[in-house]
């Protein structure tokens, strides 16, 4: 039996009215709350509590962008149905977001400063993009202040910071070898801040929303793994939840893009899919309101939510990284074959040497 949370739910009419004006029906709202409970792996008995918190709390939020491409902002704003994106933006009072806010210049900086000053220890921060540390951080400055200085001040005084996207969490693409700007993720740049990591390129908005909802409902961030990622979203390996997994176990593999196996939806392992190396809930939550995700669309996973993915998950269309120290584009098997050949050649030469060396008496 499914419980009927809305029976137990008494949202005051004022809140409902507000939501209705935004085009969010009671039904949509409850659907959203149950989806959040499901994402967070909470039993449905928590739905009223979630609805209560989401409807009534209105924390301040600032969204900082550093060395980024605004892809995570895009992911948030492009949520196709209005509900999720709207609810997030509406329940939160977004005071600062470079890409979408109306004020600019000093006025914009002032709204940021006001939040930090007036709501110290109470507001939330979302950080997008990596922070350069090299040369005193001059590679990313906003309003004359370095990204590091801004992050230290804003995240250091926040209730909690959510680092979204692989750049903000682990340095991501700016930190890829040779990392010219000395880019790092937020937790490394500001170790003192309370940070939760939501890597991915881009972040999955469902997970971001669920994190915020968890914070509103319980006053704390969800449990994390050793990389600071919430377990509800990053606790399972893509490979283990993949819809193509049965073909892996069977031994049915796509060998070439567009071949028979590819058209049959076989496993993309041999095409370099990094699902076996990546922890994320893409196969279950998917992107764009559950429309699809890379492997469903026929492309292997690139491991974008793992640290150093640009360096260690590439070549993206090969199963294993290139052998370090050996000239590029040498696969492990080529190096292995070379090693075997050298050994065999050495032994053959030795054998010949032995055959032609003078037959002296061994008991000399």
């Amino acid at each position: 039996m499914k419980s009927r949370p809305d029976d137990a739910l008494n949202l005051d009419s004022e809140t409902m009215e507000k939501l209705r004006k935004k085009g969010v029906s009671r039904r949509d709202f409850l659907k959203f709350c149950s989806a959040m409970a499901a994402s967070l792996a909470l039993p449905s008995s928590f739905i009223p509590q979630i609805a209560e918190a989401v409807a009534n709390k209105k924390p301040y939020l600032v969204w900082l962008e550093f060395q980024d491409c605004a892809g995570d902002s895009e992911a948030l704003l492009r949520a196709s149905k209005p509900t999720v994106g709207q609810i997030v933006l509406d329940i939160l009072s977004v005071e600062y977001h470079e890409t979408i806010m109306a004020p600019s210049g000093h006025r914009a900086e002032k709204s940021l400063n006001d939040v930090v000053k007036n709501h110290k220890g109470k507001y939330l921060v979302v950080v997008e993009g990596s922070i350069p540390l090299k040369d005193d951080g001059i590679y990313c400055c906003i309003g004359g202040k370095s990204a590091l200085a801004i992050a230290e001040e804003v995240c250091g005084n926040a209730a909690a910071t959510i680092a979204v996207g692989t750049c903000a969490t682990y340095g991501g693409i700016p930190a890829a070898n040779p990392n010219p700007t000395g880019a790092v993720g937020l937790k490394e740049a500001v170790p003192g801040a309370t940070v939760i990591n939501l890597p991915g390129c881009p972040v999955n908005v469902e997970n971001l929303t669920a994190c915020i909802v968890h914070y509103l409902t319980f006053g704390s961030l969800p449990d994390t793994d050793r990389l600071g990622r919430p377990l509800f979203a990053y606790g399972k390996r893509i490979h283990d939840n993949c819809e193509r997994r049965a073909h892996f176990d069977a031994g049915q593999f796509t060998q070439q893009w567009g071949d028979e196996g590819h058209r049959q939806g076989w496993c993309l392992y041999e095409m370099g899919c990094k699902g076996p190396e990546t922890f994320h809930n893409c196969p279950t939550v998917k992107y764009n309101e559950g429309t699809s995700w890379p492997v469903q669309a026929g492309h292997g996973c690139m491991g974008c939510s793992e640290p150093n993915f640009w360096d260690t998950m590439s070549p993206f269309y090969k199963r294993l990284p290139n052998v370090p120290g050996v000239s590029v584009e040498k696969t492990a098997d080529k190096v292995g074959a070379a090693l075997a050949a050298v050994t065999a050649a050495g032994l053959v030469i030795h054998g010949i040497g032995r055959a032609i060396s003078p037959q002296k008496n061994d008991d000399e």
Partner: protein
Amino acid sequence: MSDIKRTYVWEFPVRFTHWVNVLCIIVLSITGYYISNPFIYALSSKQQIMGLVRLTHFIAAYTFMMSVIIRLYWSLFGNEYACIKEWFPFSGEKLRTIGAELKFYLLISKKPLPNTGHTSLAGITILLVYAGFIFQIISGFAMYSLTHSGVIWTALGGWLLAYIDLPMIKLYHHLAMYVIGAFIMGHIYIAWFADIRERNGVIGSIFSGYKFMSNHK
């Protein structure tokens, strides 16, 4: 001619683990190669080829680990030829014999080596090979721990994930297979070579345990 002494060198645990290792490494290498490069395709989704190959890899892996543990145990409690000290020939005296050994193996000298157990070079080789085995076990269990959460697997290898990125662990686990393969080629060749040159029955010794040492120096 000198008189020949039949000497008991390799005790049962040494011979036993040697052959278990041989079997396991063959199975692990074939299944491991299949895992990285599936060379047989299933005809229907109901088959379980990759599933079975991986299962075989893991069963062989556990067997291999046990075998390595038994051998390490015996290196502490076995006879002098099995002793762990043989693997660390870094004392001055033992290092000095390396020159003579090299001359022998490089066909410069034909004087048989006096060692009953391992030569110094062989000792170093065993040390490196066991380091390779232990690396395979740790890196293997690091990968295994991805789908088997629990203290045991974290202790056996999962901890490595905090130090090496997973794709690199896979790469090194893969490359180590070739390193071990190269060792095996050299190992068999040298055993054969030594058997003929030294006439001490070293090849037979890994079956029977006995070597035939001449007292003549």
